[in-house]
């Protein structure tokens, strides 16, 4: 009844090209941002920030990044964990080497460094594709984790081999280190999420995004119509790694504070982010958010139900969690291979016609 586009005329090209062509969508999205920026910081507490909101926001950035590479450009990557580690260690080295520069700049620079590393590891994609490439990105995963483990320069020769974030402030408020408040870290991450989503959305609907999608749909055909695969694939690797690097930097500096590379950025992280974009929807910005929310909330939910509600021992609950996550992934792939974003799309189609479907 309410959700419809009848009567909303688009009279200029600008109107036609906007992200949310339907007025209600547009309002809803502004309302959501307004709530996230103006309301949530005042009601947030430590539990919500650390258990749900911060991981959600950070994983959303990582999922956005991987979605560009896998969802939009069709290059499957299993090296996300390794690239997040690059972001984290780059951020750490920058934070400790240049303590006077703002942490926000460090995070962005860490993203840029990761982008360069990502392009390097993306080079083989010009020769190999499909599963061979997926396995080749595992080389990045294992090599990078090993590198950060073995070369003491990366962790500043600390005895434990861990890196831990020193305290850094923005406008006088600490965002890293032990003295942070939930609202500040939340807003700091939210700013990056909003910027990332805005950039991703506008990149993917522009010329670059179309090139990526052409390569994804059929690379030879794309090459014939004049898309340069070298340029398209390497930009996809670069942009994707940029966001993954930012996610890694935030994950280390703001969320965890101290990191042991094999544990925090192991292969499981790569799979986790991959699951997010599969469940959320490949090739969809909204899907990245939905997938991240789903994969962050599911363990929290299961934990509360199983150990909190039913009183199961934690190891048993952990096993069941594995089964449920695995089962859900298979289930989702069978029922809706295009993920939650597709469900949302279908729902909107239904709503448009509701309550008169004919």
């Amino acid at each position, binding site marked *: 009844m309410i959700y419809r586009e009848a009567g909303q005329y688009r009279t200029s090209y600008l109107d036609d090209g906007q992200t949310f062509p339907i007025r209600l969508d547009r309002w809803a999205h502004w309302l959501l941002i307004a709530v996230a920026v103006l309301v949530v910081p005042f009601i947030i507490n430590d539990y919500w920030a650390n258990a749900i909101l911060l991981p959600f926001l950070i994983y959303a950035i990582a999922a956005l990044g991987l979605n560009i590479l896998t969802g939009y450009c069709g290059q499957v990557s299993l090296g996300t964990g390794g690239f997040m580690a690059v972001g984290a260690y780059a951020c750490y080295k920058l934070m400790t080497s240049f303590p006077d520069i703002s942490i926000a700049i460090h995070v962005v620079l860490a993203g840029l460094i990761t982008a360069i590393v990502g392009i390097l590891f993306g080079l083989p994609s010009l*020769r190999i594709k499909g599963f*061979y490439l997926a396995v080749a990105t595992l080389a990045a995963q294992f090599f990078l984790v090993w590198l950060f483990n073995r070369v003491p320069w990366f962790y500043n020769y600390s005895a434990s081999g861990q890196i831990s974030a020193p305290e850094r402030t923005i406008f006088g408020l600490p965002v890293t280190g032990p003295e942070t408040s939930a609202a500040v870290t939340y807003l700091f991450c939210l700013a990056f999420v909003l910027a990332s989503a805005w950039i991703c959305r506008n990149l993917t609907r522009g010329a670059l995004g179309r090139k990526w999608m052409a390569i994804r749909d*059929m690379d030879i055909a794309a090459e014939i119509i004049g898309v340069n695969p070298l340029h398209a694939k390497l930009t996809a690797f670069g942009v994707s790694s940029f966001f993954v690097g930012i996610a890694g930097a935030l994950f280390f500096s703001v969320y965890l504070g101290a990191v042991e590379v094999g544990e925090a950025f192991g292969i499981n992280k790569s799979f986790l982010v991959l699951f997010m974009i599969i469940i959320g929807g490949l090739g969809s910005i909204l899907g990245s958010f939905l997938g991240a929310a789903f994969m962050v909330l599911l363990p929290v939910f299961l934990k509360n139900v199983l150990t909190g509600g039913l009183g199961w021992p934690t190891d048993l609950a952990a096993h069941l969690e594995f089964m449920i996550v695995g089962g859900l992934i298979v289930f989702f792939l069978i029922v809706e291979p295009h993920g939650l974003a597709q469900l949302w799309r279908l729902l909107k189609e239904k709503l448009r016609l509701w309550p008169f479907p004919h």
Partner: protein
Amino acid sequence: MPDQVLFAIEVMLNGLMAGVLYALVALGFVLIFKASGIFNYAQGVMALFAALTLVGIMEGQVPFEHLINVVFGTEIHGFGWTVPALLAIILTMVVMVIFAWLVNKLVLRHLVNQEPIILFMATIGLAYFLEGLGDMMWGSDIKALDVGLPQGLNTWIDETTFNLFGYGFYIDNLDISAAIIAALLVAGLVVFSQYTKQGRALRAVADDHQAALSVGISLNYIWVLTWSIAGFVALVAGIMWGAKSGVQFSLSLIALKALPVLMLGGFTSIPGAIVGGLIIGVGEKLFEFLVGPLVGGATENWFAYVLALIFLVFRPQGLFGERLIERV
């Protein structure tokens, strides 16, 4: 001969033995990939699950006993009997066949005609599920697996090489029996696929799904068959690795070791899996021996991948893989 060379030869021989085991896991991948075009990430977890089931049956554990105890408040701890190894292996095989049938029935049939990447993701989901299921059924503690394979130093090789070179090579009996069993397994698979009706059907499906369907071969049956064979290969690999280092979660990580083997040998070639396995096994041990000390060790984690990666840049279909011809 100088000591360094002797050491290197010993390292190489041990690498060969490890390579046999990598090849064994890679073989399971290749079988399924050839028959159904599915890149089965769950192969490693299948090996873990098979080994867990084998130990569980041998020791007479009650499946899901932990869960049952928690939910119903009972105190069950095993049936109280032990099962001889051979019978347990047969029972485990039955479980793996049932598993293959269920995977087909519940997962693969619903994913026909999906893109390969979707199928790959589905097997990752399957791997997670199976990992949870294995732990749930049999518990997650590290278990020792002993099916009566000889273990320890092979004294004959030790003495012979000592008499020849003045330095005895250390080679584990278990590795030798693993190599022999793997060779037998491969020979058996070759005989099966060349000389039996089912084997011919298997090759027909691997060659061309549509053509195989049109001459009356049931794809469903063939897929169950391939997954069962892959389950069997996983069981053998699980027994070998389990006997070597105990049945535990890290067993499922051998799948990750098998991936570069596949890249090197080509996803569609059985000889490729074997040669690739041996190259990787020898390569990573030698690299660790020669270069490892210079760069801080533990290069085994990534050497295989980087080797495969460099190799692929020059030959994208692997050593023996079929050359992909793409048309628009």
